[in-house]
């Protein structure tokens, strides 16, 4: 790990206040950091808080209903204390995001060229002509064929894979230091997915940007991430270098996740399942949030919330039974 990370999140907590007065604990005491040039995978199932965390980094959560505390340090700034004007200068510039839905995140009434050029002019200034040249160059970099012609097309003329590449080109327009990709390949066919992952690897090698990749696909994580954080019910339950997470996970939830995906080389009659349901986040359980679904549960698990402790160098687990090898040896 490098001495000073590019982005460092400390004790991030996010609560949503509903109209009916209910408070949802979406994210609780999340600590994360990503070094320059590294890729962090943020993994978990629907509603675990991974997308909300990324929206908090981007400053895109609604101010009226979201109560945010903690610190998000990026490049010498605390993003949570930064005025809106400064955030607007950062977004699309040094901080960029790729969303999951390329169909809905492009504006249908402007050409893709207009949308990329707008970003460049907003942050870099210069002439429209030079911005257009840069846009063509960006489209070429994400392997869009005949970009000089494509740049004047509207989003509906492009296939899903092409639109996703346009989104990536737009995110890269100002050479971001941090790129957040929220399920960038989920809506795509496996052949396109391969192209996009290849592209992300190329870009990381070329620009040295840090990437936070949000996904529920553990295959994708294994391919592109250096480090992984697993989230469950608003908390990080495990953080580890990617190799270790896949060979010796230290949280029962991670074990369940890894056991539930079909393997190519391991023909199991039955896949592992995680019984039960995610807890109601309006009233999170007092102890471990996974306790009700955990086959390794002890009485102590439900008494107090377990801390995130280091099991081995760089490998953290929020489970009092870790290291889990002890349970099966």
């Amino acid at each position: 790990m490098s001495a000073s990370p590019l982005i460092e999140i400390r004790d991030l907590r996010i609560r949503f206040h509903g109209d009916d007065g209910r408070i949802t604990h979406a994210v609780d005491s999340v600590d994360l950091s990503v070094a320059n040039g590294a890729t962090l995978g943020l993994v978990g199932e629907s509603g675990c808080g991974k997308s909300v965390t990324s929206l908090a980094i981007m400053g895109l959560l609604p101010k009226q209903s979201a109560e945010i505390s903690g610190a998000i340090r990026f490049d010498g700034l605390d993003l949570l204390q930064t005025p809106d004007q400064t955030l607007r200068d950062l977004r699309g510039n040094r901080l960029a995001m790729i969303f999951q839905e390329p169909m809905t995140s492009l504006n249908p009434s402007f050409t893709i060229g207009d949308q990329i050029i707008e970003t460049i002019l907003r942050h870099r200034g210069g002439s429209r002509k030079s911005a257009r040249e840069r846009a063509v160059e960006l489209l070429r970099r994400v392997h869009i064929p005949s970009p000089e012609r494509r740049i004047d097309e509207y989003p509906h003329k492009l296939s899903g894979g092409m639109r996703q590449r346009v989104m990536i080109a737009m995110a890269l327009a100002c050479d971001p230091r941090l790129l957040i990709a929220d399920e960038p390949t989920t809506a795509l066919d496996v052949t396109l997915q391969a192209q996009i992952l290849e592209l992300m690897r190329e870009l990381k090698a070329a620009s040295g940007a840090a990437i936070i990749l949000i996904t529920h696909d553990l295959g994708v994580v294994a391919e592109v991430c250096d480090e992984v954080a697993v989230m469950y019910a608003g908390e990080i339950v495990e953080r580890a270098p990617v190799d270790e997470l896949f060979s010796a996970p230290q949280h029962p939830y991670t074990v369940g996740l890894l056991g539930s995906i079909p393997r190519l080389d391991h023909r199991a009659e039955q896949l592992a399942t995680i019984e039960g349901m995610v807890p109601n986040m309006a009233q999170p359980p007092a102890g471990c949030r996974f306790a009700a679904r955990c086959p390794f549960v002890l009485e102590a698990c439900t008494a107090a919330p377990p801390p995130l402790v280091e099991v081995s160098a760089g490998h953290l687990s929020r489970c009092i039974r870790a290291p889990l090898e002890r349970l099966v040896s």
Partner: protein
Amino acid sequence: MTALLEVNGLVKHFVAERSLFGRPVAHVKAVDGVSFSLEAGKTLALVGESGCGKSTVSRLVLRLIEPDAGTVRFAGRDLLALDAGGLRKFRREAQIIFQDPYASLNPRMTVGQILTEPLALHDLVPPAQRRARVAEILRLVGLEPRLARRYPHEFSGGQRQRIAIARALAVEPKLIICDEPVSALDVSIRSQILNLLRELQDRLGLAYIFVSHDLAVVKHIADHVAVMNLGQIVETAEADALFAAPGHPYSRALLSAIPVPKPQAKRSRIVLQGEIPSALNPPPGCRFHTRCPYVIDRCRSEMPQLVPDGIGHATACHRTSELPSSAAIVPSDGGFSPVLEKLVAAFSSGPEAVRGGGV
């Protein structure tokens, strides 16, 4: 032994554009000469990229849409010759489960009503016994009978997919078409539904046509796989044979791209260049030739036929015999590490398996 389902030369072209006078001027060749067969109790997976025609095939097989040409025989009967009454009887024997369990259940009906409807429509169970039968079906898919009084919105995605499966099972079909049944679900829920589908197949002898773009899931569940590209089957084989050594260049590219949950997995990924040609105007000759790394002149003019190799592995490629070995194409995930193997086993068998015991 005759197959449960035999499909021959199936063709479906949709009209994409009409002239001023209503004459069709452009067609989407969604399905163009598809043949396969499926035995009772087995699973055939249809795989391919979006727009390759896999969902259209599944609807043609059920005669939810009418084919332009070809035959479909189900248990020896010609489906396309059936009249309304015959078709209704056929619907008892073949059912479908859709991808989106939020859209496929009527929000105004309770689960009990949803499950009673097919029983009443086909007059399968006398009214007095319907409630008991609904309870039985719910238990079959792992839901408690008391849930019959609830509405779909009260259930999670995984539970709703169980209800959709229960509805399909209500008429005791022989064939269920599963159109991306787990794509909308979270991984842990996905494994529950996959386990359930498999268990039901063993218990009830169901045949499945499984439409999916998730190839690891396909490897897990299918006996046979047909790979489709632009309305045609380019390769068909036993699942194990296909994943061991895919023949067609398109299958090679598809299987080489599977992301596997193993860091630093060895792979020889083939990243396809170029866009998928439009089904409106498929290229002449082999429909894959615009993206194929092994293309020769013959591929541009002459359409290859599916040629079986004698052990049921058929490939539609002019160059099948000349292509390099594909043995290392499919990435290896190495299965579980020894520690993970034990942990997953302990996780699945519950507290008793763990040293130190549970609560």
